[in-house]
């Protein structure tokens, strides 16, 4: 049985059916005219061979082409794109089965943060009452390492609301190079969580090593196809409307191997996309459709997620503002567009502009997490533990987020109203009506134990100051004390024998140390 996620039976939608159709038509028009600038020669050739109008730009440096994609190619790509995509896992019970027509949300981590935020607690004494001492956190930033990535995967394994793991720490150890980064980030992740693992590719030369590693863990080539324990994410179209050279190359190779992949686009309304909602929506939709079309031409039937990470530009700095309300609006719209095509959607929510855990962080992330979850994206990178526009990872924040998602998952549960329920309620009301106390408490106990009631907020304090951080920190320590289900000795040994570049210190069985 795959993971259940949460099925949003009546998803929140902002667009009317005619508006969806208008965006679709406008995107097709953009793909025809002006088309996209393509910095990758292979992609230009692939499009040309498939019937797109491709023209080279004379004496351009770097060389690039204009690719105008006809509606026919886009429609064929949409037809060929799988509508149901399975993302497997080391523990098959953690597999994710996503149907593009079904708004079943899976919550996953995400982004590749440069900074890891440690937490330390200091005692402070109340000025007006020296007997009152509170513990207040200090946050200490440092560069992320592969050990941190292992720790993050370990925490993620034990966060109940988390369905999958996108590597969220950029490993910056001195012995990590461009050549060995991919194998180490995938091994560190896969070795510390039994949930699905997704990451971007740093070096195309490492793609086959990563796939081979996944095959060994899954139990062979066919087993990996059956249970794809890894997937990749490619932002091959840079906004506005430009196929970048290296990522497009990687994307073509990934598609040719049939590995599940996200085509992701991340325009900023106001800088790299129009500031108006219709504008950014039309452009991001065109960019994702262009990527999907390329992938389906390369290898029809490749499992590709429709990935959208729109944001609004901050007017004070011209950087992206994920905490802005509009960012959530765009994202909800994109989810609706993906559902229009029947293709599983990769979406983002919960990204905060705040630099550290606190009120701003809670307000921004909770706002967008609720709004975007309600729209029913299938694969939701919901910024577990992320801060400062996804450049910082705080494990403490990840634990806090788990509590948020417990609430959100309960909120999204479908109401149960049927004849049996109504009959039972009528009987209850009549019975209680005739008692002197007029209390329904006697009927609570069974329901209370059935999992139908939401739990209390786990970090509730009992004093004048809240104890949220401290209690969450204790929970984080409890999680890290839990055992890790590593890849077994035999497979680890095979991986170390076959895959070059793995750091000996990641081998739990000492063989390579």
């Amino acid at each position, binding site marked *: 049985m795959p993971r259940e996620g949460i099925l949003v039976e009546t998803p929140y939608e902002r667009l009317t059916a005619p508006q969806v159709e208008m965006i679709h038509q406008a995107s097709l028009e953009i793909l025809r005219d002006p088309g996209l600038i393509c910095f990758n020669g292979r992609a230009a050739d692939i499009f040309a061979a498939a019937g797109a109008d491709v023209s080279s730009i004379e004496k351009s440096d770097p060389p690039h082409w204009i690719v105008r994609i006809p509606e026919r190619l886009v429609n064929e790509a949409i037809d060929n794109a799988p509508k149901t995509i399975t993302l497997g896992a080391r523990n098959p019970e953690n597999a994710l089965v996503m149907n593009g027509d079904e708004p079943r949300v899976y919550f996953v981590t995400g982004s590749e943060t440069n900074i890891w935020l440690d937490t330390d607690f200091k005692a402070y004494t109340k000025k007006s009452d020296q007997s009152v001492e509170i513990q207040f956190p200090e946050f200490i930033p440092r560069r992320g390492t592969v050990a941190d990535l292992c720790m993050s995967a370990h925490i993620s394994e034990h966060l109940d609301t988390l369905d999958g793991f996108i590597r969220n720490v950029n490993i910056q150890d001195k012995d990590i190079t461009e050549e060995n980064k991919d194998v180490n980030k995938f091994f560190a992740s896969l070795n510390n969580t039994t949930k699905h693992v997704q990451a971007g590719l740093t070096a195309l030369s490492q793609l086959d090593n990563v796939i081979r590693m996944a095959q060994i863990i899954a139990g062979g080539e066919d087993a990996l196809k059956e249970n794809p324990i890894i997937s990749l994410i490619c932002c091959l179209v840079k906004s506005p409307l430009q196929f970048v050279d290296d990522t497009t190359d990687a994307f073509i190779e990934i598609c040719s191997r049939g590995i599940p992949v996200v085509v992701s686009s991340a325009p900023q309304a106001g800088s790299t996309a129009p500031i108006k909602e219709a504008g950014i929506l039309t452009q991001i939709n065109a960019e994702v459709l262009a990527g999907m079309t390329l992938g389906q031409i390369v290898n029809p039937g490749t499992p590709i997620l429709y990935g959208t990470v729109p944001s609004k530009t901050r007017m004070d700095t011209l950087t992206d503002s994920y905490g802005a309300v509009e960012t959530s609006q765009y994202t909800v719209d994109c989810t609706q567009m993906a559902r229009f095509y029947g293709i599983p959607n990769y979406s983002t929510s919960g990204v905060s502009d705040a630099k550290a855990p606190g009120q701003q962080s809670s307000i921004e992330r909770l706002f967008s997490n609720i709004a975007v979850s309600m729209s029913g994206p299938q694969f939701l990178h919901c910024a577990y533990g992320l801060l400062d526009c996804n450049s910082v990872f705080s494990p403490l924040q990840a634990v806090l987020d788990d509590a948020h998602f417990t609430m959100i998952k309960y909120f999204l549960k479908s109401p149960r109203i049927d004849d049996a329920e109504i009959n039972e309620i009528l009987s209850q009301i009549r019975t209680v009506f005739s008692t002197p106390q007029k209390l329904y408490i*006697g009927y609570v106990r069974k329901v209370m134990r059935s999992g139908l009631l939401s739990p209390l907020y786990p970090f509730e304090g009992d004093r004048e100051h809240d104890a949220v951080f401290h209690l969450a920190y204790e929970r984080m320590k409890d999680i890290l004390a839990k055992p890790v289900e590593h890849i077994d000795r035999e497979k680890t040994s095979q991986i170390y024998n076959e895959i070059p570049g793995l750091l000996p210190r990641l081998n739990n069985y000492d063989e390579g140390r």
Partner: protein
Amino acid sequence: MNDIMAQLKENVIQGRITQDDEGIDDTLTGPGVVELTRMALDSKIPVKQIIADGLTAGMEIVGQKFNAKEYYVPDMLASAEAVSEAMDILKPHLEGSGVASRGKFAIVTVKGDIHDIGKNIVAILLKGAGYEVDDLGIDVPTEKIVEYVREQKPDFLGLSALLTTTMLVMGEIIEALSAVGLRGSVKVLIGGAAVSEEFAREIGADTYCADGFEAVRVLDSYRAE
């Protein structure tokens, strides 16, 4: 005989008042506390033993589960309500049974106030703890309360009010009891969202109880004195 007592204790733990109650889960079926208490009487089991080995023993386990956070307030209330029903059945048989009365507790929501959830919960818990409880109702005039104390001579009087306006009536009741010389005959406990320990001192109440569990502890402590 032992089987009836074991079942009675288990049904108290599950808070099953009658055979129709679902309890905590569907694992326990058959007679509930009411039916088992009657069966125990029919089997000539001494009342003292029914109370000690069935009801009190069951409630002790409930208390332990509550303290261990395995049980929540609804569980405690369900068990207390079951014991309270059993005590009603046993009441005619108490005289000469060797069971000492734990005391009579009257509870009331004061004049001008109709809120009674807290009052009802306190009544259930105290009754379940073995106290004789008289619930005088809501919006009860002060004179009626004074008259009740004069005639029924309760050991304890619990006053409940939710509002900052009606809590002032509590002070008036205590003054009225003093005025007719009855204040010394009854311990006055107050409770409700708006009141506090400080307010209890201000109006001359004996104590403030934050909730029903504290009310049980307070009354038990008076008995121990």
